């Protein structure tokens, strides 16, 4: 056997990297295993992902090669020299503590702007007030309840529009959503918008983004919330302002349906 094991261990990082590249390129049969299409202008999350991927990728490949080299060189059947004990090397220990520490510190500082953009710099109105949410999204086992404030722009008033699993937003505008949960922990996840936030019952939170591309995209739950978690799925539609206004008006009119004749029943 001998060097067989060193080759087996080498095959693990090679296989890992190969699968990774394969899916990143979207080659058969690993299509659709990489990022879904991004529909917001802000690419800071993607950028952070790639920076961390590059760092960890280099470390992963380096460690794999190093382990292979040791196994190969010091194989019992081929290595004739005396055994050398390296345990307790002060220099090595300082080296492998300080370098990762510097890398982590770099990441901690490097990501601060992305974090602030996602969590602190809420879009403002011209008068300096925080922009009010366009809708409230409430997670509930197992659906997303959507509540639009209606004509008066205030939530929890008589002209609110109530929908389920169906969120529409206008394109090219800063969108603020109020998100909360009704029963248990959920996580509001918009894969195409690079937006993910746990929602907590009784806690009001805001997320914001600026969609730049029309289309229908998934709203999913990213926190195991019960047996139906996997099918807790909504749909967000990005459309032009005029389409959005027309849709909202229609939703309101449907909700205010005040007449029903037999002809409609058939």
């Amino acid at each position, binding site marked *: 056997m001998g060097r067989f094991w060193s080759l087996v261990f080498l095959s693990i990082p090679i296989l890992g990297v190969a699968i990774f590249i394969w899916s990143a390129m979207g080659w058969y049969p690993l299509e659709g295993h990489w990022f879904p299409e991004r529909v917001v202008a802000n690419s800071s999350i993607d950028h952070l992902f790639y920076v961390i991927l590059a760092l960890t990728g280099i470390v992963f490949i380096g460690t794999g090669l190093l382990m292979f080299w040791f196994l190969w060189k010091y194989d019992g059947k081929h290595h004739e020299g005396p055994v050398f004990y390296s345990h307790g090397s002060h220099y090595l220990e300082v080296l492998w503590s300080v370098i990762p520490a510097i890398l982590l510190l770099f990441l901690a500082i490097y990501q601060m702007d992305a974090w602030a953009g996602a969590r602190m710099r809420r879009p403002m109105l011209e008068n300096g007030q925080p922009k009010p949410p366009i809708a409230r999204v409430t997670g509930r086992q197992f659906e997303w309840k959507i509540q639009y404030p209606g004509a008066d722009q205030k939530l929890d008033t*008589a002209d609110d529009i109530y929908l*389920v*699993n169906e969120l529409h937003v206008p394109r090219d505008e800063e969108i603020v959503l109020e998100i909360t949960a009704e029963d248990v922990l959920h996580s509001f996840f918009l894969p195409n918008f690079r937006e993910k936030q746990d929602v907590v019952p009784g806690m*009001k939170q805001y997320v914001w983004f600026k969609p730049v591309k029309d289309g229908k995209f998934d709203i999913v739950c990213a926190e195991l919330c019960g047996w139906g978690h996997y099918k807790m799925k909504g749909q967000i539609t990005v459309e032009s302002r005029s389409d959005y206004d027309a849709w909202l008006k229609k939703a309101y009119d449907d909700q205010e*349906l*005040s*007449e*029903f004749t037999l002809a409609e029943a*058939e």
Partner: protein
Amino acid sequence: MHISQAPEFGGRHWAGGLVLTALIGVIVGCSSEPAKFEPNRIAMHKAEITLGITLDPKYQVEPIAKILSDSFGTPDEPIVPEVEDIDQVFDLEHLKMAAGPYGSEEDGTPRGLYRQHCVHCHGITGNGRGPTAAFLNPYPRDFRMGKYKWKSTKTGTPPTHDDLRRVISDGVPGTAMPSFKLLPAEEIEALTQYVKYLSLRGELERNLLLEFSDLDCSVVKPADQRTKEEQEYVASLSPEEIQEETDDLNSAVEELTDPEVVNEDFLAPLVEGWAYAFEDVTEVPEKPESELKESLAVGRDLFFNKGGCATCHGQSALGDGQTAENFYDDWTEEYYDPKDPSQLEGFLALGALPPRKLDPRNLRLGNFRGGRRPVDVYWRIRNGIEGAKMPAAQQLSEEEIWHVVDYVRRGLPYDSLSQPPEHEQENVRVRN
């Protein structure tokens, strides 16, 4: 120094493990039995208690099961009974999409939608007693009575196709029934038809049970299972008379199980009700123009006085009016009589869910189970809610109902007790 080597690759241990894995796979994979519809044991037990009899397996229980499987098939292989107008209720193509185990055809047509989406709450028979049912409040609907709450038709008539479709699509807010809005229209159609299929099957089973439980089976029972009265009765008969009674019983069962009789006398009236439900829709006249403020004042007056709403929904509409009396819905009252709870144990042993009190709705949550459109609220008030204790408001005119609709939808405040103010945490940290 000898350094021990890792064990050699391969060998008999590996092969043995593979064989064992394959064996377990074969056993587990092949031993699952096809799904079966359960008999309505609750209704059977109820009939036994009310009539003071024991149903005879051969003459009363098995014939019903046979008729049902002949008319409706099995959960894997549904059949469309050959009755007039059945094509207005469901068709085989859609039933097959909803029935059977979860999967899809080679061309991508989905299969087993009911088992994918509904079965864990509503159960394979549609009895509302799937594995998760016991944890839910309210309990999932038992389809077998054919009664539905959220519909546009009067109490006693089936819901329209559109009523059922809307419940599946929008869900029922305030209950565990979620929205299936994102399913393709064809799949919602298949599920709607399958709900009707289970309802129709359940209703037929009930009606047959009424008929079969009326048969006197005392002569054919084993002697040790007869009641005292039956024993005396059988003892008083001569052997010829016993033979005559047995023949009568056999011919009665034969007649009832005749497919033509089943279709004509039992199924046809049920199918007609479902097929033409849309003709029974309560029309909603256009809402009269009125100043909202005045309408609310009139509605408020009706709510407390002529409408009588406050007696149950409470002085402040919190649903706390009728606290003295214990109400239960029709599905519970079938096996539970709050005035005589002594029989409950027997039903619970048969799988009935522990009774839950029916509370009048708290109207201040802004939560409308049957839909918040004005027409929905109008139907609730005009027709009442079938199966629940909400009565139809016969005493109110159309215009008056519209005022109450306004009051219920617009005139009640969101209540801070039932809807506590939320934690106003923003995503900003205030630094000093």
